[in-house]
């Protein structure tokens, strides 16, 4: 981790000295994470790309004032989150999210739910597991924005409680309780697929 942190610090330093290549490297390193997060927040790929680009543009314009108190990842997620909140506010009269990315389907028309292999379940469970993932994506998209944000940042992007508090500018206790509420809501929506209710 120290290696990653110092590599990041030197990238930021180079950016502050107007090294364009250094900023491009930051984009390359973070674009998938940032785009995936925004896509799950806004629900369609066109808006997600626009917002992700805007997030990077804003980062580019303000990287000189980046003090390094938070990690670069936390800082980028904060910019992206603010843009998502902004967008939701502006379009609050219409429904922001219907389902997660209806346009995210593969060539066969089946929803794209990621390609990470999961070796923890037996092959006969694979179909059920895939269904569970699809249901989970849909359930995430139905969560209220505040809960969706924390669960995406914590359980999908791997941010710690204190980092999320930094991103959202809210107390640690709020982060914990929202994570719990979000998980509870998802658990209830997935009850048909979980062991406890079988």
């Amino acid at each position, binding site marked *: 981790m120290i290696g990653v942190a110092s590599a990041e610090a030197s990238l930021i330093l180079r950016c502050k000295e107007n090294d*364009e290549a250094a*900023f*491009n490297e930051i*984009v390359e390193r973070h*674009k*998938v*994470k940032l*785009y*995936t997060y925004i*896509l799950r927040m806004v629900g369609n*790929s*066109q*808006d*997600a*790309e*626009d917002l*992700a*680009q*805007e997030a*990077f*543009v*804003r980062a*580019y*314009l303000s990287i000189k004032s980046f003090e390094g108190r938070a990690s670069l990842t936390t800082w980028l997620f904060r910019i992206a989150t603010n843009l998502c909140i902004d*967008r939701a506010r502006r379009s609050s009269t219409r429904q922001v999210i219907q389902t997660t*990315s209806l*346009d*995210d*389907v*593969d*060539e066969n028309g089946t929803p*794209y*739910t*990621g*390609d*990470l292999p*999961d070796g923890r379940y037996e092959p006969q469970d694979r179909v059920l597991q895939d269904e*569970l*993932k699809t249901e*989970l*994506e849909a359930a995430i998209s139905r969560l209220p924005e505040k809960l969706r944000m924390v*669960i995406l940042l*914590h*359980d*999908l992007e791997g941010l710690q*409680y204190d980092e999320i508090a930094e991103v959202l500018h809210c107390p640690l206790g709020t982060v*914990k*309780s929202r*994570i*719990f509420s979000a*998980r*509870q809501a*998802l*658990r209830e929506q*997935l*009850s048909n697929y*979980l*062991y*406890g*209710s079988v």
Partner: protein
Amino acid sequence: MRCKEYEPLLSELIDEALPPRQVWEVERHLAVCNRCALVYNDLKRTVATLHSLGSSTPSPEFTEELAHQLQALGNRKAPLRELVGSYVRRVVLTRTVAAAVFVSLLGMAVFSTPRWLNQAAPLAPQRPPVPKYAAMDRSEFMALAVNDPLQDVSAISLESHTSTTNHSNRVPGVQH
């Protein structure tokens, strides 16, 4: 403690974020409470599935478009909002003037020509598609920003520009 009070702690137990004393307390409850044990297992499976969800890749044009936008801002003479705002205003102004001219021409045609000519009145010309500001070359972009005659920069936001932009359909995660 009641079951309802244990539930938030189950979430923190999964994250290994509880102090040892509370871990011991919650685990002792789970050993004797079937209901909380089921909730705990379901929450654990929910979290495990969340961890297994994949990521999406932006379209191949994403990085290219972004590079253009950054290039346009390269010398940072004007802040982003100003650059974009002035461009949007320019587009809006041009369209408004064009629409006003068209409407007045149409009005003149209606009131000053014989009826048989009205029927042959031309259709409204197709508006040209709005190019994404990032796709313009830098000097063009800067010229728009610098030469803009209007002063009120704050009125128009990035959002309003975005909504006027035409996009091709893109499918993330699928390489073109």
